[in-house]
């Protein structure tokens, strides 16, 4: 076949490759711009018009201000707590549910599954959910960032399908050796499902890292704010003033822009560093989700 690549085919190849290069540029450039701008000298940047292909001037001033900002470190710290504690709880409960609901011959599994799946179609909605949290006394507590999202039903269904595919012989031989269900789950099911566990860890972990809505609704106390809510203040509502107490008034307008860019970089770098791993596992997760009909 190779010998017969026609002109039409060659043109077709060129068009596709050009399109893909443009697509990649459009996808990546916003990040590159932010990266270059964050290292730029604020007064050079304000005069610069159009695309940046490298930082204009060089300054670490905005990074210094970002790291000195107590809200950024509070946000980082809180988000780390929510990611670690939240993901641990997510994985524990999801694997309990996936294991229990994939066993055969257990009573109530049918009705419980129905009740769980029903929540994917219908919910109480924003206001009753908020009032419920209020009645439970969970507003303005760290639990508000962990408990309401303790199980993702979608993830539960994916894990359950994966557990259901584990050969029954493995379970039976363990049971003959006197293992109970907890041991079977932790010493057989989880070890043989490591890829799916990795996918779940990443799904849940990134979800907690990026979680914003629950914080917006349930938290008023700034000491509990996750990074995303701090970011919203800086990027959307423009509250960079607290960071600039040491900066002379004249320079404030100048440096405000570069602070935003540095903040975006600081908040996104962990995801970017993990991205190569994330990507591989996430894709696997989507596939598992889609094959499970």
């Amino acid at each position, binding site marked *: 076949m190779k010998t017969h690549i026609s002109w039409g085919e060659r043109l077709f*190849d060129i068009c596709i490759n050009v*399109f*893909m290069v443009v697509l990649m540029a459009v996808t990546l450039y916003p990040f590159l711009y932010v990266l270059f701008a964050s290292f730029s000298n604020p007064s050079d940047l304000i005069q610069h018009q159009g695309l940046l292909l490298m930082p204009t001037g060089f300054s670490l001033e905005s990074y210094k201000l970002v790291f000195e900002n107590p809200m950024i470190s509070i946000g980082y710290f809180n988000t780390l707590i929510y990611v670690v504690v939240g993901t641990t709880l997510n994985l524990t409960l999801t694997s309990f549910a996936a294991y*229990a609901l994939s066993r055969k011959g257990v009573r109530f599994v049918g009705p419980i599954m129905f009740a769980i799946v029903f929540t994917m179609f219908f919910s109480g*909605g924003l206001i009753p959910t908020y009032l419920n949290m209020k009645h*439970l006394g969970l507003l303005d507590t760290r639990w508000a960032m962990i408990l309401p999202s303790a199980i993702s039903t979608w993830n539960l269904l994916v894990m359950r399908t994966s557990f259901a595919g584990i050969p029954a012989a493995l379970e039976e031989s363990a049971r003959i050796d006197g293992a109970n269900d*907890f041991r079977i789950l932790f010493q057989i099911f989880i070890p043989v499902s490591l890829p799916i566990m990795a996918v779940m860890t990443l799904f849940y972990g990134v979800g907690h890292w990026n979680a*914003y809505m629950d914080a917006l609704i349930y938290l008023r106390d700034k000491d509990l704010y996750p990074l995303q809510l701090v970011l919203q203040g800086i990027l959307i509502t423009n509250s960079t003033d607290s960071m600039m107490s040491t900066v002379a008034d004249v320079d404030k307008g100048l440096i405000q822009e570069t602070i935003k860019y540095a903040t975006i970089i600081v908040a996104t770098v962990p995801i970017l560093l993990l991205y190569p791993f994330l990507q591989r596992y996430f894709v696997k997760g989507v596939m598992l989700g889609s094959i499970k009909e």
Partner: protein
Amino acid sequence: MLKLLRDWSRHKYIYLMLLPVVIYYLVFLYFPMYGLQIAFKDFSPVKGILGSEWVGFKHFISFYDSYYFWRLIRNTLLISLYELVFGFPAPIILALLLNEIRSRVFKNVVQSITYLPHFISIVVVSGMLVDFLSGNGLINQLTGLFGIPSVSFLIVPEWFRTIYVSSGIWQGVGWGSIIYLAAIAGIDPSLYEAAKTDGAGRFKQILHVTLPGIMPTIIIMLILRFGTLMAGGSLEKILLLYNSTTYETADVISTFVYRRGLLQMDYGFSAAIGLFNNVINFLLLVSANKISRKINETSLW
């Protein structure tokens, strides 16, 4: 009785595992459904859910009569519709094109890069949009080079849907293509051989082999998309991008519920609007799922 006891002794650890799960769903998902009754009540936090007086459909009627009703319905439907028309085909086209790339390495690179925005938090994405689209932001600097006057895009109602939908494509086109690529991978290679011997070129092969091959997946995804027609986009993203100057096009049912309920604490009224929206969503989703199950014997579960 004996049977129950035997069942318990055999499955007690399983029930122990189920306990926290059942409690979670009960407390965090079913309690709020119980609380939905405030949609039919004159809810006052002092009197509580049970103590507040029933008012029947009063909130629903006053919502229907309000100035906002048709605006919210229109905005909610239009956001979903624009996402459907422009956002839905994008990943399919990308998947078809990705499949035509000859170099495996290049294909992997393109995939890795186009999946990336999916992992970036909505706050960061919105923050970048706010910055780039501001009066002296990057976009205006670029259009300024061609002498186009500067526009503060995010305070112009006419621009909102375009910004929302196109940034949504930027965020999701790569990620959305995964499922179609998986479908393409499942196409029988002998079909391509047959097409080639019939003299079909690459373009003809896409049209007559690849596209029909992934049609079941496309149809399922399309039907499921219809199930979310009244959801009106992502509440988070709209909250981050809209402001009072763009309510005319940007305010959807969920953002209205958020403002009336959580900012103005008009609980009963906003719970009623939320319920109205959720019931429609429910009916759409259930019928979408039923239809897709019928057509393809495959569905969400």
